[in-house]
């Protein structure tokens, strides 16, 4: 279902939606950095192609969360689950890659032999509104690893900027309900044609990093690992901010009254002690192995495990790496080293 939302009516729609949902969207902090935070009719989400630094995973896999509390009691110890229901939440202004990243997380946390109840609780209360980027940023390569329009159409609603208004495309019953708000108007054939132009522009690919080609080309002894490991300082920013990196640690903290909080906290395979074992052996002792692990996981292992490419081309790791270790350079080398079509940026 397609409708038209005049830009001036965004406020009204959010006002209307706020009676059903807690609203999240991209907002700028005082220091200019951007992340998903509470939005409202008075604090509108920023709808443009500038990426938020933190990814939407914070909403479904917070960087730190309590799993349960151990209460030693008085000789009657027990475990207390974390309290609270998850409020229905509407996330407005997700980039196509953001939407896709949730699909990757879903495969990891909802599929397979074990379901993650904490993730499932948050995820099931989340309704998504995509904003189809009007153009790519310099660091973006979504269309090199997939189809960003197809990804947006997995959101409950996708908004496309057609000038004075957004074309809103509902893809699910929850999305259609959102388009029931009186702020929407009927859409014309011209406006739909303009939307398609935006869509086709975003689909254009600069460099081909087809996941299958990368997976086929990822080699255990790839020389590219040496090149990136030489630069990398192992800070872990690439994975902490990556929307699809999910590694976590589990720790205990003793709190008041001798109670113990068991929590999980974001972690990364880029840290040196991530795989260090009790007897001192570390199967990934240097940066080379750790860099290889991250990239092979994204393009190869997870494809095998979950049937989906683990990189959505959001460019966060490209843009935010302090030593400019550009993932695209490695991918180019891998793809060309495999004898695939040569890559010209």
């Amino acid at each position, binding site marked *: 279902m397609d409708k038209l939302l005049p830009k001036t009516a965004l406020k009204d729609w959010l006002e209307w939606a706020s009676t059903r949902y807690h609203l999240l969207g991209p907002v700028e902090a005082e220091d200019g950095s951007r992340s998903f935070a509470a939005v409202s009719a008075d604090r509108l989400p920023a709808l443009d192609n500038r990426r938020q630094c933190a990814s939407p995973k914070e909403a479904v896999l917070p960087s730190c969360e309590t799993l349960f509390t151990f209460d030693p009691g008085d000789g009657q110890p027990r475990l207390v689950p974390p309290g609270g229901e998850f409020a229905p939440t509407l996330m407005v202004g997700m980039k196509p890659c953001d939407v896709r990243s949730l699909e990757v997380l879903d495969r990891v946390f909802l599929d397979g032999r074990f379901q993650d109840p904490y993730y499932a609780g948050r995820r099931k209360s989340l309704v998504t509104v995509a904003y189809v980027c009007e153009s790519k940023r310099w660091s973006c390569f979504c269309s090199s690893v997939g189809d960003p329009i197809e990804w947006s159409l997995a959101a409950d609603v996708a908004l496309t900027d057609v000038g004075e208004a957004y074309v809103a495309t509902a893809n699910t019953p929850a999305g259609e309900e959102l388009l029931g708000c009186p702020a929407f108007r009927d859409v014309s054939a011209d406006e739909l044609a303009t939307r398609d132009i935006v869509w086709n522009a975003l689909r254009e690919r600069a460099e081909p990093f087809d996941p299958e080609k990368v997976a086929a080309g990822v080699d255990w002894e790839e020389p590219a690992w040496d090149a990136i490991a030489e630069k990398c300082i192992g800070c872990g920013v690439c994975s902490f901010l990556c929307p699809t990196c999910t590694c976590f640690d589990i720790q205990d903290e*003793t709190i008041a009254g001798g109670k113990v909080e068991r929590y999980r906290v974001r972690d990364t*395979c880029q840290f040196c002690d991530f795989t260090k074992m009790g007897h001192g052996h570390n199967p990934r002792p240097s940066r080379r192995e750790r860099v290889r692990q991250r990239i092979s996981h994204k393009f190869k292992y997870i494809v095998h495990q979950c049937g989906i490419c683990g990189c959505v081309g959001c460019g966060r790791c490209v843009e935010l790496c302090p030593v400019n270790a550009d993932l695209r350079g490695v991918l180019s080398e891998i793809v060309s080293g495999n004898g695939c079509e040569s890559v010209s940026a």
Partner: protein
Amino acid sequence: MAANPYQPELATVEEIIEETPDTRTFRAVFRDPELRESFTYEPGQFQEVSVFGVGEATFCLTSTPTRPGVVEFSVKQVGQVTTALHEMSPGDVVGIRGPFGNWFPYEEWKGKKLLFIGGGIGMAPLRSLLNFCLDNRADYGPIDLIYGARSPQDLCFRNEFDAWRSAPDSRVFLTVDRGDETWQGNVGFVPAYLMDLAPSPENTIAITCGPPIMIKYVLESLEKLHFQPEQIYTTLEMKMKCGIGKCGRCNIGEKFVCIDGPVFSYAQLKELPPEF
């Protein structure tokens, strides 16, 4: 298995057995009487044990499901959680999550000869399977155990050697790197002793676990003795946290040791990238 795989069940430590100067076996019973009855697992599986306030660590179940009501795990002291466990006394409470991971394909081994090759604390998962097979003695052919440690004091499960020796059609071969005045068994490394004993690969499955360096040489020795990779099984160790394939810590290439392992045949190991 509880609906929440991160939430342990509470258990009381009933007995602590001092195996060696640095290894103790814990016998624990679940506090929930229903769970005590219903809890079951397979030889080769592992569990996550919590010392609340310190953290969790991974241990294989060294007891056998054929002797239900109590779970046993043997702990070598190396770090925080293992030290906290060593400081415990009977009556203390631990948390247990599991069982997790795959197990030894013992169904496929019926009628075969079994050769167990253990080193040090690596005997823990083998003991589960060994006692399981002895409790189902008629299902298997002759059972041999080759077990070694650094010194006689470092051999675990000493109070069970007699029971293993006297079981029908089974033999126990012990070796230590360094003997002492009382030691009457073999002196030498496990792989060398294996070559001396030169067991026949015919209709035999070899199951090995021990320090990584021992496993490496045992695998080589078994190949020299003409065992095929499909006839050899081992259990792998990687650093683990979640035990359920989510935290991203224990993978070797495409395989998670916590859900695709920890038990692998040597044939499967050869398919994995060399990162363990």
